[in-house]
């Protein structure tokens, strides 16, 4: 054996244990970084990239497809205040009951809705579209502007921001609705970009 030559040494049990611990710690850090990155990317895009990206679960499955595409109802039939007020509003169960007191007897969701109606309680829908904090978005002004500009009815304006909800089985947010998005659109349409237009 030449002195100074490389001699492979078998790691001792103690060293193996240390390496194992190091490996587990590194794996933990890696998973942590991936989770943080996912969170950051999700918040940057304005919607989750892994979990729940196809929209949240609702207490009652409301198929927009059936109501809008098959039955041809307008968005404004249920979201009644959208042309008049800031909020688009979700209807009370009483409006559902105008049809569903006699339609859809064998459906689970309808049974649930009817019992809520009889108890005088409301459905706790999970909110899908949410603008960032400190923003006051007014549906009425936007609907009015776009329906005048494009010469279309109010119900055809909704898809500009909400996407094709009519064909969605489960409603999901398809536009980030972040401030850059708002400001771009405001600039293109010569709408005011003063802070106090939305933030007050």
């Amino acid at each position, binding site marked *: 054996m030449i002195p100074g030559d490389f001699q492979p040494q078998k790691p001792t049990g103690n060293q193996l244990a240390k390496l194992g611990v190091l490996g587990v710690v590194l794996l933990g850090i890696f998973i942590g970084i991936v989770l943080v990155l996912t969170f950051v990317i999700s918040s940057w895009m304005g919607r989750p990239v892994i979990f729940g990206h196809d929209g949240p679960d609702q207490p009652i499955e409301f198929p927009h497809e059936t109501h809008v595409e098959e039955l041809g109802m307008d968005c404004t039939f249920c979201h009644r205040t959208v042309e008049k007020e800031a909020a688009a509003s979700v209807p009370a169960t009483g409006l559902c009951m105008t049809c569903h007191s006699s339609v859809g007897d064998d459906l689970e969701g309808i049974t649930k809705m009817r019992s809520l109606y009889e108890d005088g309680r409301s459905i706790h829908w999970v909110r899908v579209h949410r603008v960032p904090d*400190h923003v006051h978005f007014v549906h*009425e002004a936007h609907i*009015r502007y776009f329906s005048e500009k494009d010469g279309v009815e109010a119900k055809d304006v909704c898809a500009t921001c909400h996407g094709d909800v009519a064909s969605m089985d489960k409603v999901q947010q398809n536009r980030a609705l972040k401030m850059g998005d708002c400001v771009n659109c405001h600039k293109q349409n010569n709408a005011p970009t003063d802070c106090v237009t939305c933030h*007050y």
Partner: protein
Amino acid sequence: MVDSNKWGMVVDIDRCTGCQGCVVACQSENNIPINLEEHFNQRRAIQWIRIERYWEGEYPDVKARFIPIMCQHCGSAPCEPVCPVYATYHNNEGLNVQVYNRCIGTRFCANGCPYHVRFFNFWEPEWPESLKNQLNPDVTVRSRGIMEKCSFCVQRIQRSTRESERDNEILEDGDRGLNPACVNACASNSLIFGNFNDPDSTVSKMKEDAMQEGGRGYRLMENLGTDTNVIYLRKVGESVVEAPHG
């Protein structure tokens, strides 16, 4: 109709009875947290509008003088250039705007303001359970660590302008709830709100009348050159003295 609006207020000191109605109206309109005694003791109470009381004369011939003081919406505001994050700025309608989501709470603006009308949220705002449903949905609830101040009820201005645009009507004085909450609440019409750019508005006429030679009009701390959008009209009567604030 004028191209751009310049919102402002005229405060007639002669009419003010010091009833604090404006203070209460403002508190409830703008989701201002409830000020407890300890908040006042620490000088940390939040009041977007307050009534300052002064005594005039010697006992027994004393007279109480009241001056409602809110943000003066200065044309050349000392609070604006000191903000490092542009959270307070002047918009083209003459309003001194506080942008809550930009504010990082340096409190430089409150130090700069000579009228003491900017308030810092030292605590997370709290309301008793029974009052939670009275919060105004049109106004942001400010969280701990940011500044706030009178906005001339900008939510009402925005709503009124939007509604008048919708109906293709010209927005006039007091239309569609344009007035701030304090103006609506004032029982003696001591506060008048309107558009200074519109020559036919009540405030424009009052300003023109008051600011001419020998008129009753003055601005608070006019010597500072803040060019405020609030005009005060001094007391009428035998003992006309300039309010000690000036």
